[in-house]
């Protein structure tokens, strides 16, 4: 494979990469074309445009797999061949946007003696980079592969070139495969799920547009393009969540998703602008990372930029505080939830951090500390999401909170420096979460409801395929060996470096709190998934009443017109298994959930040969010799860690099993009568807080004082961000160790918040105090003074007018006037024809007159 994909040509400079790696822009282009075609021609096609979507996304998936193959070839070639290139790209004195024809004067400034014109990027727009491998200071027989960057300038103004292009490395290739595969399976699944829907074609068009946008975001070469892709996926999410917008809750959910993301997008824009200026006015991802890693950007600047970008990640990837839109987004069709809110869009924030890891690693000082903002955020999200999943009755909401929790894991992993673990978890999570969501959709499709307590139960007998795949997905989510979730979760927990990893070797720091919170969340995940399994698949079937009502469907269900695959349910009172188009994708995803974990056996894992260990990391993680990736330490999990964590997870599952499968089942029903939350006040209050989602929605949607209600959440959020940022900056700047910066940050946040609130309330108070007396005074002034003057003037005027009227007006003036009047009205009667009151007739006369005048001007004068 190496010889096909990499060819050496004379000298030592030019080695080619694969054709697909350089033309990867095709992969987002195909779904975009699919979107356009489905929009224009979908209604006329026999299957409503879905066949077009499936074929084209399938083609994209194929290309993505081939691109992955070429990248693997690239890495293999690098492993076996040395090179003399020292840099992937040589930016010299950072000539951005100038033509190199003006370069001559700068030759004396660079001290590395390289020939800029040979190895410089941006020499001619549209060309790909020149160095594909870089020496990694090793033995000279291997090198590190550079990312394949290809770009072209689409606009230039004011000395700045705006480019659009692609950046292909292991991370890109991983996401390409995941996104196209899940999108393809979701498209196939949707042909059955939304069959007969009122806007079938429109739905498939937007699925294609979403796929195109996400792929566009993933291959982005510069941060401007990333912003465009970010916003585009937000728009598609809005359109797809609100697919059945005729029902108010759905359109509310879509708006909530979009507006919450907007709050975070402020952080995105500010962060990207800071990075642009900090890196010397360049948008290029490679350059920004390289400059961040080499220490040429001040650490405080990187910290502020990272914190701003974290705000964006909080909203897009559902981290705590701005996660409230994700559960509401379940109002959209289930395949949409599987694609967008489990596997692809919500990982956009995680992807951004992974892509700009140089900025985050250096900005947040991830190496060698024991706490940082990202790790804290991830850990809190992990735990908060897991706790909320316990009290949901809607199966999709459980999965939504589970997604929030798993996204917390990914953020946690990135925050402790376990980059590959995060990306690997991203991939495995995409597969098993999509499997779970599609399984939930399959169950809901047959019982016409998403409420587990009310209408599911005992589905194991009626839907065996769905049960099996859902079970596999759940076990993967819980992290039981040998399924995929076990491998990726263990790698994350190992990466925290806490407590010496029970005997493993060290990571980037000692994030003990992350280890504890992560393990707790894993236990809770096991517990709530066992609860879901019990309520859905075991026990007695409770949904018979739903199946009797043939015409009243829940708002989630698609319209049934023609083309629906099921026969009508009016006669049988049991649900039945879904058709092959639903079940086959489930099996494919379950298979992936089973096997994907084997891609990344930990280093030193005694049961597999050395050549099989860390394959994923080998191909996906960038090498620090390429300069755009920081030097991070890699932790190796130990047997102790694996055994202890698995045992704890099984404890969590066992606790839930005892509660549900034994005690609840014995009583019948869905929960214990007179359970703990009713007997114990503290537990009851905890339950109340969870059911109200920590009252976050109350804070965001309404407020105690009307004018302050809009300002309160925004003020609170930004005060917190400002406070934390100040705290961390001061802490970093004054070199003080944690946790003092957090404490200062918290104090600053609370102070700012209280200041803003009191200012608002003082303003309101003053206004209301002064209102009433002022109103009385104005009223008196109006009545007595102003009106008095007017009244007297009026009386005087009336007297004068009287005289004038009787003597002069009636006698003299009227006579003349009447005469004139008669003449006028006669003429008027004729001219009245022109005044029809029809505006457009006036316009016609206007334009006609103008034309005639112009004609006269031209011909006569």
């Amino acid at each position, binding site marked *: 494979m190496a010889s096909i994909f990499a060819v050496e040509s004379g000298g030592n400079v030019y080695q080619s990469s694969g054709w697909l790696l350089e033309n990867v822009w095709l992969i987002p282009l195909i779904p975009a074309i699919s979107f356009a075609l489905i929009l224009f021609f979908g209604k006329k096609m026999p299957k409503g445009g879905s066949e077009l979507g499936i074929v084209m996304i399938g083609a994209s998936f194929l290309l993505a797999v081939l691109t992955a193959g070429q990248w693997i070839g690239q890495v293999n070639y690098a492993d076996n061949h040395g090179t003399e290139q020292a840099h992937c790209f040589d930016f010299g004195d950072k000539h951005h946007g100038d033509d190199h024809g003006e370069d001559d004067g700068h030759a004396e400034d660079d001290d590395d003696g390289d020939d800029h014109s040979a190895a410089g990027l941006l020499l001619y727009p549209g060309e790909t980079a020149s160095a594909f491998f870089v020496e990694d200071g090793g033995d000279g027989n291997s090198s590190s592969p550079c990312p394949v960057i290809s770009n072209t300038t689409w606009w230039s103004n004011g000395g700045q070139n705006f480019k659009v292009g692609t950046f292909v490395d292991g991370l890109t290739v991983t996401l390409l495969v995941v996104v196209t595969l899940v999108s393809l399976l979701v498209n196939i699944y949707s042909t059955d799920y939304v069959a007969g829907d009122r806007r079938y074609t429109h739905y498939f068009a937007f699925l294609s547009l979403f796929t195109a946008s996400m792929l566009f975001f993933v291959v982005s070469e510069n941060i401007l393009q990333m912003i465009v892709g970010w916003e585009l996926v937000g728009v598609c999410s809005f359109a797809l969540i609100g697919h059945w917008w005729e029902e108010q809750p759905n359109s509310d959910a879509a708006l909530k998703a979009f507006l919450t993301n907007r709050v975070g997008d402020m952080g995105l824009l500010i962060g990207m602008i800071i990075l642009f200026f900090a890196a010397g006015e360049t948008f290029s991802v490679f350059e920004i990372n390289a400059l961040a890693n080499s220490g040429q950007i001040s650490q405080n600047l990187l910290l502020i930029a990272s914190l701003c970008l974290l705000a964006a990640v909080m909203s897009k990837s559902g981290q705590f505080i701005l996660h409230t839109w994700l559960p509401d987004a379940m109002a959209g069709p289930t395949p949409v939830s599987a694609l967008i809110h489990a596997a692809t869009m919500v990982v956009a924030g995680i992807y951004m951090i992974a892509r700009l890891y140089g900025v985050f690693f250096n900005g947040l000082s991830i190496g060698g500390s024991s706490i940082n903002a990202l790790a804290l955020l991830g850990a809190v999200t992990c735990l908060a999401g897991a706790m909320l999943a316990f009290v949901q009755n809607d199966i999709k909401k459980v999965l939504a909170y589970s997604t929030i929790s798993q996204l917390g894991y990914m953020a946690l992993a990135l925050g402790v420096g376990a980059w590959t673990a995060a990306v690997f978890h991203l991939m495995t999570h995409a597969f098993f979460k999509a499997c779970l969501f599609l399984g939930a959709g399959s169950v809901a499709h047959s019982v016409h409801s998403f409420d587990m307590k009310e209408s599911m139960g005992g589905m194991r007998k009626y839907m065996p395929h769905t049960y099996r795949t859902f079970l596999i997905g759940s076990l993967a989510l819980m992290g039981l060996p040998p399924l995929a979730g076990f491998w990726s979760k263990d790698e994350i927990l190992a990466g925290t470096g806490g407590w010496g990893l029970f005997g493993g070797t060290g990571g980037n720091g000692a994030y003990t709190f992350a280890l504890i919170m992560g393990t707790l969340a894993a236990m809770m995940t096991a517990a709530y998934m066992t609860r879901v399994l019990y309520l859905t698949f075991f026990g007695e079937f409770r949904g018979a009443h739903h199946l009797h009502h043939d015409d009243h469907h829940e708002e989630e269900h698609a319209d049934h017109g023609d083309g629906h695959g099921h026969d009508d349910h009016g006669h049988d009172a049991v649900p039945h298994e879904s058709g092959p188009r639903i079940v086959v994708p489930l099996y494919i995803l379950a298979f992936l959930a089973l096997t994907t974990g084997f891609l990344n056996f930990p280093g030193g894992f005694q049961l597999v040969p050395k050549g099989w260990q860390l394959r994923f990391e080998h191909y996906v993680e960038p090498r620090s010799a390429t300069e755009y990736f920081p030097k991070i330490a890699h932790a190796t999990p130990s047997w102790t860690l694996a055994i202890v964590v698995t045992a704890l997870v099984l404890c969590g599952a066992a606790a839930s099993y005892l509660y549900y499968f034994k005690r609840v089942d014995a009583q019948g029903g869905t929960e214990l009568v007179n359970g703990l939350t009713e007997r114990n006040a503290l537990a009851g209050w905890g339950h109340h807080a969870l059911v109200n989602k920590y009252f976050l929605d109350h804070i965001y949607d309404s407020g105690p004082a009307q004018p302050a209600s809009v300002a309160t959440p925004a003020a609170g959020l930004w005060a917190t961000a400002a406070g934390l940022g100040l705290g961390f900056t001061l802490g970093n700047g004054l070199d003080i160790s944690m946790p003092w910066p957090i404490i200062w940050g918290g104090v600053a946040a609370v102070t700012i918040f209280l200041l803003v609130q009191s200012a608002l309330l003082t303003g309101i108070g003053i206004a209301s105090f002064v209102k009433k007396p002022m109103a009385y005074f104005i009223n008196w002034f109006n009545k007595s003074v102003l009106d008095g003057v007017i009244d007297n003037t009026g009386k005087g005027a009336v007297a004068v007018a009287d005289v004038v009227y009787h003597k002069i007006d009636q006698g003299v003036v009227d006579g003349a006037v009447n005469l004139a009047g008669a003449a006028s009205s006669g003429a008027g009667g004729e001219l*009245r024809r022109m005044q029809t*009151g029809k*505006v*457009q007739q006036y*316009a*016609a006369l206007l*334009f006609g007159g103008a034309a005639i005048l112009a004609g006269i001007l031209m011909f006569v004068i």
Partner: protein
Amino acid sequence: MFLWQFLLLSAILFCIGVYGVLARRNGVLVLMSIELILNAVNINFVAMGAFNGTAAGEVFALFVIAVAAAEVGIGLAIVLLIYRNRRSIDLHEVDLMKG
């Protein structure tokens, strides 16, 4: 490029706009046709400016854009008021004169 290309395009858009203003019954559609007219004029300005190598054409087009935006704002406010008072923006029903 020839200058007449742009002027021709401008003239055609202008006349399509004029047709729209005269033939449409819905107030909002008339306003849209007026927008067509204004844009045709803008193309004219910018083309002439580019032909003469000066920025004056572009500047004037910017002013026209600003005025057009203001006009659409007021126009729609008036249409809204008509709708509120008469429940309809059909221009046939908005003439009280009997001539």
